[in-house]
């Protein structure tokens, strides 16, 4: 093949031509080898298209591992998550409440009260009837939304609302919730304003 080309070079002035010898196998092998190496790299470093995984994290599991878990910081994070999924629809993720649905929690005297006893009874037993929150009159009905949450979860939620949006009140522990749940019994009566005021702070 190459001898033919040597004796028949492209004549001067004519347009160039391309000879038709076949592609050698070795370059395809190189391509496959690189595809394999590249695939390994992508598997380790891409987070498989997860939009929250940034380098240096390699995947979603690693990112989740490095989220704060211990201490007050983690409790707040967990409390925020639970709050936004359970309470936020009515009370608002910004804690400002929604007219006709639920009163505000930001600055609410029931939330920032020194003791957490009255506050904790509300999600564990429910609340209905007229009540004043932040100078406004409310007369709605709230189911016992906290019954389905564990002691730790509800404690985190209450700690979260007591320290967010400008509220500055103390934390609520899982033991506190456990005690109140026990005292309320299996089918607690729905709270009213007067029943709450009868409780110690």
């Amino acid at each position, binding site marked *: 093949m190459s001898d033919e080309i040597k004796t028949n070079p492209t004549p001067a002035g004519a347009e160039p031509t391309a000879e038709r010898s076949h592609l050698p196998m070795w370059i395809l092998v190189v391509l496959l080898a690189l595809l394999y190496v590249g695939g390994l790299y992508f598997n380790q470093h891409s987070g498989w298209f997860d*939009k929250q995984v*940034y380098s240096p994290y390699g995947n979603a599991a690693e990112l989740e591992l*490095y989220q*704060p878990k211990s201490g007050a910081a983690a409790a707040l994070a967990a409390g925020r998550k639970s709050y936004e999924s359970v309470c936020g629809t009515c009370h608002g993720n910004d804690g400002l409440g929604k007219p006709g649905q639920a009163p505000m929690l930001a600055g609410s005297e029931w939330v920032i009260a020194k003791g957490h006893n009255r506050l904790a009874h509300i999600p564990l037993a429910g609340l209905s009837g007229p009540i004043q929150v932040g100078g406004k009159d409310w007369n709605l009905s709230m189911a016992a939304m906290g019954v389905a949450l564990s002691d730790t979860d509800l404690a985190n939620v209450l700690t979260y609302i007591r320290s967010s949006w400008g509220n500055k009140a103390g934390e609520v522990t899982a033991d506190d919730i456990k005690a109140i749940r026990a005292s309320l019994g299996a089918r607690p009566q729905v709270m009213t304003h007067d029943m709450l005021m009868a409780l110690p702070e």
Partner: protein
Amino acid sequence: MKNGFAIFLTAFLVLVTSWTAFVLGPQLQLGRARQVAVLNSSDVYPTSRPGEAAQGLVVYRANGCAACHTEQVQQDGVVCDVVLSSAGKNPSVVSNLLATLKLSGITEEAALAAGDKITAAGGKVETHIIPTGPDIARGWGLRHSVAEDFLYDNPVQLGSLRIGPDLADVGRRLPDANWQLLHLYAPKSVAKDSLMPPFRYLFETKKIGATPSPDALNLPKEFAPADGYEVVPKPEAKHLAAYLLSLHADVPLYDAPFTPAAPAKP
């Protein structure tokens, strides 16, 4: 490929793939992004830039600042530190245990294991998440930059050359508007070896009137104007300084977790 249509089809298919991966994909993932929650806080991030700072972004773009400065912090890795928050009922047992464990610069799994050991001995621990990397070590940022940092910027000025330092977090590092203005007018007056040209056209040298202007720059002798003259920043300079002060990337997020330093006790 014998004919033009085959070439066209090839090129079209390849470009559609490339467009899907780099234009459509990111737009679907990030194009309708909203504010996200700050870790361990009820705040949302980012907040949009105040008016002056937004105008400052226009000045930043028009003057090509992104040709020399980047606005993206890089992070090479992440380590954990285990910190004792309470010694519990058996302080001596706990302190003996602490002496045997490696508690600093370790992976999260090692931190969890160490934390379990200490909790079993009665103590309480906190794990601190610490980003690592030369940018972090230099103080250019507290964590790597993420998409949320640029949510409200138009145009996004990430930059690609570090002829000057990174600016992603410069509002936290250099929060003094006066320093920024001095640096713009005469970079060498505040940074001895700076290669940055002076941006004197953003300022006005005018005769001192009845009283000196409150905005006048307080320049060292070799950069000060002639006697009887003062250097006053034009609105562009003030807006640019406001923009630089608004550049923060210092809150922990889900996709960029870190443990912020505890605020100083009052």
